[in-house]
């Protein structure tokens, strides 16, 4: 029953059933009650009344029963009326004031009685009080039913959401042996969350999040990041890129009063670096081999999901990995929940806790702290027992090769993101991001050179003038609009994992150019253009220009 139904029931006229064998008196009741704006149903015998009840009349609020009817006792109707209208109040009218009879009648289920001759004002007072009470009873029962339905429904939904959340987390989280992680939620859902992932370069990525509030609302705030973080971590992207994207995603999806305090960590054994980004979390503790705090990384950023792209600071703190033996991260719930002894945990207590064996940590927290009002989480990374980088070559199959050939002609040259395609192709093979970036830059330089200087025959010297870039761009647009099938670029990419080699060749329909005119190495660094060829030499192991100068071939070996 919703609010409107309740209101309607309250406003409807009181409906009263009168059973009385004295027809004169029956009419008297009817006139009186109708004058009080009640609806009245009249019956003059038991049989009359039973027939009425089988016809399923609309609900009644109250029944007035005379006990001495021509065909029996009015009291025998109580059960049938109650079973048909459980909320109807029953008023017994009787000529006797025999206490035993009324005791029996109350047991049978009447709510009150009047003695004949009936005082009509008294009767009306009683009717009003009884109807009011019966309607309230009905309302209460209906509300409590609705509430229990709602609760059941809610529990089912929570159960589903919880299941979904747990499955997602389990699928995306890759627990590492060196990481001890413990989350103790304050309710069925946790707004704290720790995700561990391995990057393809062997880096360990850790995302430690504490969303505003707790319970389902907080857990939902974490959802947008649960997938994004592992995807980016798997590609071994720099922490700054990950922080930036997470912030952007949350900004798009969360309402303004919701955000996620976070610590992002990247432990990169091949570069021997440790990156920490702390946005609004308690300080991250870094211990040395003797277990002393050697460094504290305080929060220098705002939580994720607050600042827009321009204001957001994505740069992490970078430290030397060999300087440390242990990292400890915790949420504010850990230091703000009193212990059973009424104290708050200090830094030394937290360091001691972090030394517990992983299977004991939750038990220790439970034994130490009172029931939390906030979610509590603690994470500890052991840096001393780190696998050697050689063990960490993940993903790439030795027997993998790609030969990719492309021939683009005419207008298609204008709309194709060829370098982007090549980078995507290689990054799908889980090649290290550094290598993919190198190939991308090589492909961009070669493709743009082929398009702009080969096919379109633009002169770089234009760029040198004031507003030169603009004019250059204009001419490029004009040239692109006139492309025909005589204009083409052919590309071939060869990647062989076994040889660890990548060869990229790009040839264009242009006439070729003189190498010496473009300069290979010794250009002054203050010239705005003409860096392309120098870049190729820097980034590739070998660069060949095939006469008449319309084909470039670059090779990367032993990457």
């Amino acid at each position, binding site marked *: 029953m919703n609010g409107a139904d309740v209101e309607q029931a309250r406003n409807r006229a009181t409906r009263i059933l009168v059973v009385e064998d004295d027809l004169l008196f029956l009419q008297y009741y009817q006139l009186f009650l109708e004058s009080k704006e009640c609806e009245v149903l009249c019956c003059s015998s038991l049989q009359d009344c039973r027939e009425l009840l089988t016809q399923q009349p609309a609900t009644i609020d109250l029944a007035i029963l005379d006990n001495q009817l021509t065909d029996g006792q009015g009291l025998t109707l109580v059960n049938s009326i109650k079973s048909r209208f459980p909320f109807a109040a029953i008023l017994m009218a009787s000529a006797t004031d025999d206490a035993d009879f009324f005791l029996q009648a109350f047991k049978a289920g009447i709510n009150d009685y009047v003695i004949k001759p009936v005082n009509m004002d008294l009767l009306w007072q009683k009717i009003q009080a009884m109807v009011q009470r019966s309607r309230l009873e009905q309302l209460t029962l209906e509300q409590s039913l609705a509430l229990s339905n709602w609760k059941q429904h809610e529990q089912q939904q929570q159960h589903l959401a919880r299941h979904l959340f747990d499955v997602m987390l389990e699928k995306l989280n890759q627990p590492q042996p060196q990481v001890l992680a413990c989350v103790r939620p304050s309710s069925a859902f946790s707004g704290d969350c720790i995700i561990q992932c391995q990057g393809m370069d062997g880096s360990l990525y850790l995302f430690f999040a504490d969303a505003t509030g707790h319970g389902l609302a907080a857990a939902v705030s974490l959802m947008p990041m649960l997938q994004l973080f592992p995807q980016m971590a798997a590609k071994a992207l720099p922490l700054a890129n990950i922080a930036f994207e997470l912030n952007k995603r949350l900004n798009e999806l969360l309402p303004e009063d919701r955000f996620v305090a976070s610590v992002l960590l990247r432990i990169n054994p091949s570069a021997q670096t440790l990156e920490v980004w702390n946005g609004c979390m308690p300080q991250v503790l870094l211990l040395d081999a003797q277990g002393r705090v050697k460094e504290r990384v305080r929060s220098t950023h705002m939580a994720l999901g607050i600042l827009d792209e321009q204001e957001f600071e994505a740069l992490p703190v970078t430290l030397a990995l060999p300087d440390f033996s242990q990292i400890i991260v915790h949420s504010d719930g850990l230091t703000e929940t009193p212990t059973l002894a009424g104290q708050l945990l200090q830094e030394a207590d937290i360091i001691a806790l972090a030394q517990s064996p992983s299977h004991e940590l939750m038990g220790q927290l439970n034994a130490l702290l009172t029931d939390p009002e906030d979610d509590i989480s603690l994470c500890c990374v052991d840096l001393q027992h780190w696998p050697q980088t050689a063990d960490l070559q993940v993903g790439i199959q030795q027997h993998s090769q790609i030969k990719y050939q492309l021939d683009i002609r005419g207008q298609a040259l204008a709309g194709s993101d060829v370098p982007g395609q090549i980078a995507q192709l290689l990054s799908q093979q889980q090649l290290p991001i550094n290598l993919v*970036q190198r190939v991308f830059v090589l492909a961009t330089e070669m493709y743009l050179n082929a398009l702009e200087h080969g096919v379109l025959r633009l002169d770089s010297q234009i760029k040198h003038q004031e507003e030169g870039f603009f004019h250059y761009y204009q001419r490029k647009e004009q040239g692109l609009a006139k492309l025909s099938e005589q204009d083409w670029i052919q590309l071939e990419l060869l990647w062989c994992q076994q040889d660890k080699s990548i060869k990229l060749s790009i040839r264009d329909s242009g006439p070729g150019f003189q190498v010496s005119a473009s300069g290979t190495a010794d250009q002054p660094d203050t010239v705005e253009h003409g860096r392309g060829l120098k870049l190729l030499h820097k980034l590739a192991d070998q660069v060949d220009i095939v006469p008449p100068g319309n084909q470039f071939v670059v090779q990367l070996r032993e990457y």
Partner: protein
Amino acid sequence: MSHAIKVRLPNRFDFNYHQTFSQECNSLLNDQACQSVELDFSQVQYLDSSALGMLVLLAKKNKGQGNKTLIIQGAQNTAKEILEMANLNKLYEFR
């Protein structure tokens, strides 16, 4: 009042970004209150030779009209290698 202004560069800093970049930088060079320009490279993953050209051009213009401190911040991986290779540390302060 001394005043540093930050310019965030995109994931792909190449010719397509030229218009945005030059508009933004030109207005900064003309801004009297601005004493240093920080180019935030933390998001840059791809950078090509025309980006290098734009950086050199900006430095040249700055010498002529602004004389502000130019800073490159947060460059990583290949982007950093390319910037170093181009000796841009002669024109920009690296952080």
